[in-house]
């Protein structure tokens, strides 16, 4: 490759580029009429030393980057003496955040909303939004929210892609791990994302099953791939992802379990029991209503010899099977 004849820049390259982009933004906001490329090249000093092609390439890139930042850079046809030519400008009203008069207590709750994302992949946008809203100079009043620190985390690697798919209405494809069924490839038209009980769930139309489905984002294996164009399907207008996740995850009717629990043990089971009867051998008998058998089996097994399931038989068998499993395959292969 040819080496550049230009002298070493005094400032780091990224600083030179920031300066160029900022001057471009100012020039395009400042002008009332759209500027042709020729006028832009003239107006922004950093473009001066470049050849025609180098300038054209750099301007294209700069324009794309500003748009990706959310700057409303528009292209317009300008009548020149000879023929129509493309011109560029940024509309000041489109550019600017609308005037919002925020009270100190409103700033405080907004700031808390922003901080909930501080451990998430969206921490940057959340903090930036706050700086824009605080630009007007209102100081926040945090007193009422002192010591309150809710965190919305996004530890699932697929979160960013899933969010972009939901916002852009773009079909996706991914490998999904589900219990004993193993890993399968799924095709989805994403509708929404919900965080429930500390986990992210993705809702949408499952193309393979032709039905609405809920997916736990943490069970997606490997990267999420695009599988179609943005905006290529419609989300049901009344879709509420959180309601769908709640229904899917906890809608089963409650069943009653009867347990024998050793005295002093099973503290959390006792708190949820609907009835407790003391037995004469130091044990208690508990009635407990449950919806998710799978979660309860694990919890009951975790108590080992402190808890004995009496009813229903299916639950009792499941706990026994779980305990046999914990003996280890090699030792527990008794019939």
């Amino acid at each position, binding site marked *: 490759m040819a080496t550049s004849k230009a002298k070493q820049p005094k*400032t780091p390259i990224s600083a030179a580029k920031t300066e160029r982009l900022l001057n471009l933004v100012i020039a395009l*906001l400042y002008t009332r009429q759209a500027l042709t490329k020729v006028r832009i090249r003239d107006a922004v000093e950093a473009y001066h030393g470049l050849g025609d092609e180098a300038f054209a390439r750099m301007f294209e890139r700069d324009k794309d980057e500003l748009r990706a930042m959310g700057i409303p850079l528009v292209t317009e046809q300008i009548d020149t003496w000879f023929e129509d030519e493309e011109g560029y400008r940024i509309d000041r009203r489109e550019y600017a955040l609308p005037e919002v008069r925020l009270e100190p207590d409103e700033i405080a709750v*907004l700031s808390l909303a922003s901080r909930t994302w501080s451990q998430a992949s969206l921490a940057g946008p959340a903090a930036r939004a706050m700086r824009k809203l605080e630009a007007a100079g209102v100081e926040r009043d945090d007193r*009422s929210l002192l010591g309150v620190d809710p965190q919305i985390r996004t530890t699932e690697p697929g979160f960013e892609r899933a969010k972009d798919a939901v916002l852009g209405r773009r079909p996706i494809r991914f490998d999904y791990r589900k*219990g004993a069924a193993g890993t399968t490839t799924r095709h989805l038209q994403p509708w929404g994302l919900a965080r429930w009980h500390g986990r992210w769930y993705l809702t949408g139309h499952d193309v393979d099953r032709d039905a609405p489905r809920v997916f736990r984002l943490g069970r997606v294996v490997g990267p999420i791939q695009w599988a179609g164009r943005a905006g290529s399907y419609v989300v049901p207008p009344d879709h509420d992802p959180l309601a769908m996740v709640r229904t899917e995850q906890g809608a089963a009717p409650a069943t009653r379990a009867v347990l024998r629990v050793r005295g002093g043990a099973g503290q959390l089971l006792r708190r949820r029991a609907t009835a407790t009867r003391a037995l004469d051998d130091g044990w208690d008998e508990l009635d407990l209503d449950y919806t998710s058998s799978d979660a309860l089996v694990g919890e009951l097994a975790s108590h080992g010899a402190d808890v004995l399931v009496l009813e229903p038989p299916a639950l009792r068998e499941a706990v026994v099977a*779980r305990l046999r*499993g914990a003996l*280890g395959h090699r030792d527990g292969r008794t019939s």
Partner: protein
Amino acid sequence: MTLPGINLNEPATDRLHRLLAMVPWLLNRQGVDLEQAAASFGVSTEQLEADLQLLFLCGTPGGLPDDLIDASWEEGRVYLSNADTIARPLRLGVDEALTLIVGLRALAAVPGLGDRDAVDRAIAKLEAAAGSLPGALSDARAVTVDLADQGEVPHLSEVRAALEDHRRLHLRYVVPSRDETTERDVDPMRVVSIDGPWYLEGWCHRAQDVRLFRLDRIEALSVLDEDGTPPAQARPRDLGNGLFQPGADDLRVSIDVAPEAAWVVDYYPTESVEERPGDVSRVTLAVADRAWLRRLLLRLGAGAQVVEPAEVAADVAGAASAALALYEES
């Protein structure tokens, strides 16, 4: 050339975002303290000075001194002028509006969190400000966060009141790993919600250390008529990696996890995860509490096989056979 506190690898567009927000912020706070401004933008004072130097080189076309932004920061006070074209902040981007609207709606759904009225007003104003974004509002409804577990956070308002009044709390608290109920006095430091449940973080006088207490495991709570200011050595823990923080003295346990038990990897921080043939993952966990580990392995059943150490496998097998003996008797 390297200066302390200057990030030379920062992408140009990230820096431009900051400059475009910084200009209106400074214009409305003439004479603001340099350090305060740097802290507000989450950068070092060196970075802020570099940013101001860069602004100084920018301006409207023409390149004459009158065209350029004027910035000065002598004696630690920042003044900015001649920046009319970028005097207003850039409108909110999709992700920016999304985080605040989703966050506010999540806060609004938590009972006992306090200023519900301010939250509602902030949502209304934010929706108006973000209104020019096509579809931004419906987009924000497509992402929803439940911080309150269907509207139930026990003891939240009592704990918050104690925080505000600096009062000591007395708790009856269930410790599930030891399956016992304990009594303790706690000086509250904050309430945090992370990955679902809400916790009180405070100085525990029984442990003489900072402890987290899950609000839904507090059996009874009373506010004592005593000052609850935590001692100077009480430091809130960094929750960036979640609640479980492995210690150097922890026991390292290696287990093979089948797909039905793979949720363990989502729940607890693992030292390593290695994919093995047959859809099995070999997971290394750092464990401080053996009773907790025994319960976890009983819970997982055949879904987890202890690779090492052998004494852990023996311990779990012993607990499992004691339990199975009960079933054979009854």
